[in-house]
């Protein structure tokens, strides 16, 4: 009898903790979403009154800068992911399969760049970009992102390739493949889950990136993160519009996550 009561209590505590976790994680997002669908008058004390409207979204969408920022961010994320992964896959493969001092110094370089804070890159990058005339252009944004992603993801990619048994490639080499062929036909397909996972992470990282966006972009190539920030740092923030922008900024990331999370988890499991 006591056993049953204890079991029921344990189950109740478990359920409550689950609920708490759920609320804690969903809470802030929910608050944001609710704010975005309240009209300007109802944005104060958002839980009072039942005025809901999508007018915020309409207003925001009409602001060309926001829409252009969305588009720019999208293009940037996609391009950055494609190019970064292209380099990273090769880099990770090299780090995994080949020894020697070239690899070791490359690895050390990557590690060092990883530890150095972004801010330390951004300042020189700003100078470089202005000097090269690519400040506030897609190219000027693309290159730093690629560099950073290559550093970070090469490490992980190396791990994936470490986990793939090299005997398959040796068999391919014996069967007449070139080193490149062995890579393309044997190692690459095997690493696909890992590559998929990293692509998703890379895309999300670029989409959400703020510091580079803040410093390296301006009026010509606005990005969604920095555009959003502009709403906030002014006094007298229009919270309803701002949260509508935020929800818009959040949506693609959410979609990518929901559809990609299975791949990410499976890929990382390697």
């Amino acid at each position, binding site marked *: 009898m006591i056993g049953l009561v204890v079991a029921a209590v344990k189950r109740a505590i478990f359920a409550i903790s689950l609920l708490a976790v759920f609320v804690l994680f969903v809470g802030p*997002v929910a*608050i944001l979403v609710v704010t975005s669908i309240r009209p300007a008058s109802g944005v104060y004390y958002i839980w009072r009154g039942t005025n809901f409207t999508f007018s915020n979204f309409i207003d925001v969408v009409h602001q060309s800068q926001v829409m252009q920022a969305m588009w720019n961010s999208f293009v940037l994320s996609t391009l950055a992911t494609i190019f970064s992964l292209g380099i990273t896959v090769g880099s990770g493969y090299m780090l995994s399969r080949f020894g020697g001092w070239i690899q070791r110094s490359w690895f050390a370089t990557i590690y060092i760049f990883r530890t150095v804070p972004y*801010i330390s890159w951004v300042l020189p990058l700003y100078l*470089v970009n202005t000097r090269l005339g690519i400040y506030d252009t897609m190219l000027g944004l693309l290159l730093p992102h690629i560099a950073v992603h290559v550093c970070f993801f090469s490490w992980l990619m190396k791990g994936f390739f470490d986990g793939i048994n090299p005997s398959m490639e040796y068999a391919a080499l014996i069967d007449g493949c070139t080193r490149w062929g062995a890579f393309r036909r044997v190692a690459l397909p095997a690493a696909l889950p890992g590559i998929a996972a990293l692509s998703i992470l890379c895309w999300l990282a670029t989409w*959400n990136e703020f510091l580079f966006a803040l410093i390296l972009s301006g009026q010509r190539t606005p990005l969604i993160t920095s555009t*959003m920030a502009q709403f906030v740092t002014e006094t007298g923030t229009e919270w309803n519009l701002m949260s509508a922008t935020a929800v818009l900024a959040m949506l693609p990331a959410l979609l990518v996550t929901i559809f990609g999370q299975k791949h990410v988890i499976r890929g990382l*499991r390697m």
Partner: protein
Amino acid sequence: MRNSFRNWSLVNPLKTWVGLQQYKAVFTDPVFLQVVLPNTFILMIVSVTVSLAFGLALASLLNRPFFGRPILRTVILLPLTVAPVITATMMRWSFNDQFGVITTFLSYLGAPDIAWLSDRWPSFSLIILTDIWIWTPWFTIILLAGLQSLPKEPFEAALIDAATPWRTFWQVTVPMLRPVIVVCVLIRSIDAFRTFDQVWILTGGGPARSTEVFSVYAYVEAFVNLDFGRGAAAAGAGAIIMLFVGIGLYKLVNRTIEVSR
């Protein structure tokens, strides 16, 4: 790659024409020493420790199948999906003095009024809280993957050895997770040092530069005070500090977990 070489060659020219004078200025700046550095390290230590603890707890929770587990797993990913900028904005809005949802909720519960965003420590706590909110899921996912790859036999042996769940956790699970924990703490600590987004949005480094962390300091010097040399020097200083901290952390964490057995 191209870019990284460019960076390297640029930090040097900056150093040479401005000289070490700027570095000296940075290191003797009282704001830097008494506010920025301590802030950054406090943020680093508290955020990583608490995220680790919550992450471990959550990962253990998620390790056994239960009704609604897939939903919870997706929900957990939310903080990671949402840009830190957006999260910081949400937090700033929720804790708004007059209209914030949470502020109002707290006053319903009878909690004293705290000026969340206009005093140093409350706003700094908010920054730390936001950081924890964002990064706990990161720990959770990685620790969960780690947990699921553990062999089950030692746990069965522990069952037969009449170990309580608490003991099993501390004496069997955690030691086996040590490598994963070390790596996570290391990576996350280094990243925590670099935090910028949340701080900038939540407080802008205020009030009166009291919540600045390292990255914000460099940014403020470079783009607000337009003292580029100082900003760059700060950035360079941070890079050097991080190198040492990174190495030191690695050794410390490794030894601590070894000893705590």
